[in-house]
């Protein structure tokens, strides 16, 4: 059997292949306290997380589930991440780095490290949204910036802030106004529009996206 021929070519460890073949905590959660969606279809790398916390126990992660649109590394890193943070408090879970995820998987090929970064970002976005929903953090420019770290520029696959696509960000009450560098109605603008709306999904905010070349 060619069991590992392609896996070998990619440099996927046995553990990566195990999590890819049998992803843990995969699926939907109907009654999640918070969800987060990071990455992009255009980029070929997207995950959605569903989390439920136990408020009596210092907001321990009671349940976590994920769905994936992406490569084997995307599936495996998300699966491993959910296993590593399940049962932890937010503070404890925040200490898990993308490197920890990669190392626990027995390492990732260098060109696939961004998958571990993405799954870690998904977790951070979920925590931020949960804290905002609980009124523990204010939805201000800094919050918006942190959320936007989970939105990717489709060709390079880096977040839109690093890719310098975010021109301006302002918050007025519930209104979040973003100036973005993309031709209106272009494929890029459409992809960003969808991904940014997904990123803030579930929060009581109004998005005003302004695309300019």
């Amino acid at each position, binding site marked *: 059997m*060619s069991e590992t021929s392609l896996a070998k070519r990619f440099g996927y460890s046995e553990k990566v292949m195990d999590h*890819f073949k049998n*992803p843990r905590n995969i699926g*939907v959660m109907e009654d999640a306290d918070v969800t987060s969606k990071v990455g992009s279809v255009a980029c*070929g790398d*997207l995950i959605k997380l569903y989390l439920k916390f136990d408020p009596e126990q210092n907001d321990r992660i009671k349940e976590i589930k994920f769905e994936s*649109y992406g*490569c084997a590394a*995307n*599936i495996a890193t998300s699966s491993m991440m959910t296993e590593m943070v399940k049962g932890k408090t937010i503070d404890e879970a925040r200490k898990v780095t993308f490197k920890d995820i990669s190392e626990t998987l027995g390492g990732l090929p260098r060109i696939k490290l961004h998958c571990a970064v993405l799954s870690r970002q998904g977790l951070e976005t979920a925590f931020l949204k949960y804290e905002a929903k609980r009124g523990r953090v204010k939805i201000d420019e800094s919050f918006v910036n942190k959320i936007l770290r989970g939105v990717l520029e489709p060709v390079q696959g880096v977040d839109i802030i690093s890719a310098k696509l975010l021109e301006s960000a302002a918050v007025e009450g519930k209104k979040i106004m973003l100036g973005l560098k993309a031709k209106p109605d272009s494929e890029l603008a459409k992809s960003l529009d969808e991904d940014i709306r997904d990123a803030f999904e579930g929060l009581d905010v109004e998005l005003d996206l302004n695309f300019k070349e």
Partner: protein
Amino acid sequence: MSHWTDPDWECRGLVYLDNAETTRLDPAVLDLMEGFMLDKYGVPAGEFGYGLEEEASEAIEQARETIARRINASPEEVVFTSGGTESNNIAILGVARFSYYKGKRLVTSKIEHTSILRILDKLTMQGFEKTLLDVDREGFVNTADLKAHLGDARLLSVQHANQEIGTLQDIAAIGEVARDRGVLFHCDAVQSFAKEKIDVQTMKVDLLSMSSHLIHGPKGVGALYVRDGVKLEPVMIGDEREKGLRPGTPNVAGIVGFAKAVELMTDEDTVRMRVLRDELTESLLAIPDSRLNGPRGERRLCNNVNVSFRYVEGEAILMHLDLRGLVVNTGSACYSQKLEPSHVIRAIGGTLEESHSSTRFSLSKWTTRDELLYATETVKEVVEKLRAQSPLTRKVSQPS
């Protein structure tokens, strides 16, 4: 003979549908090659050749005739090379460097093989200009568009069959335009050679690249047709072998094997692959939310099927198929070492999502209906599995 019944076939439980990448050597080709490595191991020498040298020389000239006949050329117009990429380099660099004073514009299409696009990139850095022709939704170059852009070009290079989506260009129509304008015309026929009909006279081609390893011949050998009178500056410098365009000791066994492989590819093979290709296309398109990339029917390469499956990503598809013993290929960015999506799917106007999930199935002359049944069932299972894991699936109504 199917490889299931072929006694020489070491059954590895693989269903190999990546024959546009490379093919398995025909055992009959190997038999012949062995003789030229163990017994008749001479190489054609100077004019005083005898014995071993004569045998090698005769074998190569016979092979040259076989290749020439297949494309309606004369044997003197066929140069043996180490394969498709080398043929492309010798042709394009050869024209550009020989006649740089005659014009610096090189024209090609957006969906060419990487080797063509990179050669043009390199030449652009050296002062040449390139024009990349758009293609339509099925991958065809528009001849009106071609006329508008050909202008003062020195060379036009358009492939016969596309490596990913199987588009078979109307080479005769394109060649006609080029000949009318006095523009040299190179055609990369690596994917189609010996599978689809090629006639360099009616197609008005000046240079044509061919390869051996996609038709069950050995790797590391190919050929370039150079129309009588077309002048090329050699890329490699050495002796006068192969008209000085490919100097050095010839790959005798490889050349002999190449010609044998050509002889063993028949019209019946093409017809059979076409029938199987259409059956596979229909059964894969029965999977909901799938889309065929490239044209249908006679305008498509006989052994190519390329389908995009929505809501799932190609590398994950390939990895699951590999675990089930099915070998195919994808245009997904995640699958490429440079993390770039297929330039072909993008050029035909496909979305990034379509490029990430584009899956290429390429048949061989040995591919059987049973193998394709297995392939279809396996692809269906894997796509369903991945869709069940995908957050995108939920956005649409579930397939009934």
